[in-house]
């Protein structure tokens, strides 16, 4: 069965090849390649909305929605329909063009990041040789969008949220970039697909556990790679504005932060961008440190189709962790947030980078 699918996938040039091989193909192919992550994001957003509500409900000893379909599974669809129908108000004093542009910019920044994420050994939107760098760079557009929304809303609370958000995202990009650097040092590549291939062969070869190196080196590397992985995960929480770093939209302080004035579809797009971003950072963490689409059992259950399964499973595991943390932890204060980034994460990462470099050079 699996061989048939594998052959079928290889037979379809659209799915089987990376951007480099696609240069000779018609433009329609690009559209299909670009649309695949979008379809994924939309489906994933629905699933995650449902999951978040149910997980939070069970953490809080309640049931969440139960009436729209079996155990309320259709509720996310109903929510989206409601948001589409809703009146889309723009405040009279808002800077209209920027106000309208901002949510799309935030979404574009996240969506563009998906282009370099390898969903399987056979599918990656664009097989860039600097994939990691590209993701770090392109996801910074989100900051511009958020700042834009806060400014254009002409609301003091929104502006506060946007300013906090910009400061937070800029500070936390540095630790996450440094953490990614550790993975790049070990694999010697910035191509996510290559990093993934590097970790082939099961759970023992994952970078979080030292990668496929001789056992002595591996054991030496392991404490540092695990620390880096943990820091990357925490930094990614801050990058997607999730608890305990959800200050930009800190409800109890800033009403709703930068998206206070947004309603209807624009709000939905912010919402979707947040969920998409959650998966993006999870996907990057999974690809870099947990073998991406690689099966944890070596060749068992591996292959391009199983690859999608494993990748989505790992990504969703982190998304679940984010949801879990969100409904458990309180929120940090602005200065504490900066403290964690600059005075806790950075020194640890510098030590990790130094140690990994020294171990690798032996």
């Amino acid at each position: 069965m699996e061989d048939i699918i594998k052959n079928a996938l290889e037979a379809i040039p659209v799915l089987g090849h990376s951007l480099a091989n696609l240069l000779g193909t018609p433009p329609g192919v690009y559209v299909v390649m670009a649309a695949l992550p979008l379809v994924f994001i939309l489906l994933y957003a629905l699933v995650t909305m449902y999951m978040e509500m149910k997980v939070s409900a069970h953490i809080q000893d309640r049931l969440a929605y139960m009436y729209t379909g079996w155990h309320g599974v259709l509720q996310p669809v109903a929510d989206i329909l409601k948001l589409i129908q809703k009146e889309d108000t723009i405040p009279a004093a808002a800077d209209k063009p920027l106000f309208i542009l901002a949510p799309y910019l935030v979404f574009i920044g996240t969506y563009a990041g998906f282009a370099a994420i390898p969903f399987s050994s056979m599918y990656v939107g664009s097989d860039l040789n600097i994939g990691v760098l590209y993701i770090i760079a392109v996801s910074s557009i989100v900051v511009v969008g958020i700042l834009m929304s806060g400014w254009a809303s002409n609301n003091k609370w929104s502006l506060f949220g946007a300013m906090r958000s910009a400061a937070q995202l800029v500070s936390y990009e540095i630790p996450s970039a440094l953490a990614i650097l550790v993975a790049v040092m070990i694999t010697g590549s910035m191509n996510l697909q290559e990093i993934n291939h590097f970790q082939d062969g099961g759970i023992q070869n994952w970078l979080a556990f030292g990668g496929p190196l001789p056992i002595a080196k591996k054991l030496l590397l392991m404490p540092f790679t695990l620390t880096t992985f943990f820091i990357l995960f925490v930094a990614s929480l801050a990058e997607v504005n999730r608890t305990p770093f959800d200050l930009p939209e800190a409800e109890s302080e800033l009403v709703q932060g930068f998206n206070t004035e947004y309603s209807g579809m624009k709000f939905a797009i912010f919402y979707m961008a947040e969920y998409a971003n959650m998966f993006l950072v999870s996907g990057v963490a999974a690809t870099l440190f947990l073998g991406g689409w690689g099966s944890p059992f070596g060749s068992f259950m591996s292959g391009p189709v199983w690859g999608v399964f494993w990748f989505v499973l790992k990504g969703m595991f982190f998304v679940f962790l984010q949801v879990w943390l969100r409904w458990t932890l309180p929120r940090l204060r602005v200065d504490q947030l900066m403290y964690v980034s600059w005075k806790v994460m950075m020194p640890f990462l510098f030590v990790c980078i130094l140690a990994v470099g020294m171990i690798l050079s032996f």
Partner: protein
Amino acid sequence: MIDTLPIKTSTGRPLRKEEMVINMGPQHPSTHGVLRLEVVLDGEIVVDVIPHMGYLHRCFEKHSEHMTNYQQVIPYADRMDYLASMNNDWGYALAVERLLKIEVPPRVEYIRVIMAELQRIASHLIAVGTYGIDMGAFTPFLWCFRDRERILDLFEMTCGARLLYNYIWVGGLSHDIPPGFVDKAKAFCKYFLPNIKELNDLLTYNTIFVKRTADIGVLPADVAINYACSGPMLRGSGVSFDLRRDDPYGVYDKFEWNVEVGKGEMGTLGDCWDRYIVRVREMEQSVKIIEQALAAIPEGDVQSALPKRIRPDAGEIYVRTETPRGELGFYVISDGSATPYRVKARAPAFVNLSVMSEISRGCMIADLVAIVGSVDIVLGEVDR
């Protein structure tokens, strides 16, 4: 206050640095009702806070003078501090009883203590839960509400109402507790104690929560006394003052319990965490009191013999009781007629709120939310 920075803009004008005046409320998620705070901000730092209140003013005191008799004030007292209606009712009823110089039957005293302490737990649960929300943790709130439901169920079974009870009347109670109440209340006490521990694990000793509340909004004991703070606000500053012990009413002197005070365990004495923990520990003490009262509840009448229209002798009285928020005082003047000549309520939340600008200068916006939450205001009582 405008400062000029040594930088010039492209047009040659000096760049100005201004403070920002921002309105927090009356429709803000963390003002616990319709409180409006005028906040002067320098970046994230709070320069000054001016609380504006009165959005929920319903003329409680004036209404009281225009009822046809003393009993009719009770439903209005219910609506003052709507999270602690039982305690309010008791305060007013006690004031009128002292004015009439009557004693209530012993069964009434015990039931009143049980009700007041259950209400205290319910009220503190909301204070603690919403404080979690202020800090960004949503789950403790719902856990607290789950436990509060049990208390409201007990109240519902007693008097049919879940929020505004009209149960404690002048001279007694509206009616006796129903059969089965004692067992259910005992079951609640047994059920509730482990949940406090659970709450502590989730929120109280959470590092982030401690970091957000310790050393924030420090209220020294002398300032607290000067501002006439009371309740957990005063006890959080380390002053052991509780009217249930220091100016006894009811049958509190028959039970064994402690007055909890802040000890500055996580930071400075009198910080937000101390005020928070005092509430959590008071819930444990309340459970203790309820258990003892349930075990010793005597049989008897629940109404003393009173004429239908009470006419106290001309005179005046000030009676203070300990509500979950602090010292609730009722100053009642009688001119010998069937309606009070004047009823003045000293609302603890109102007095406690006045110290807020004093302790929140120089903190950050997020801390301001922490401070407002730790004062535990109920706007129904602040505005009356």
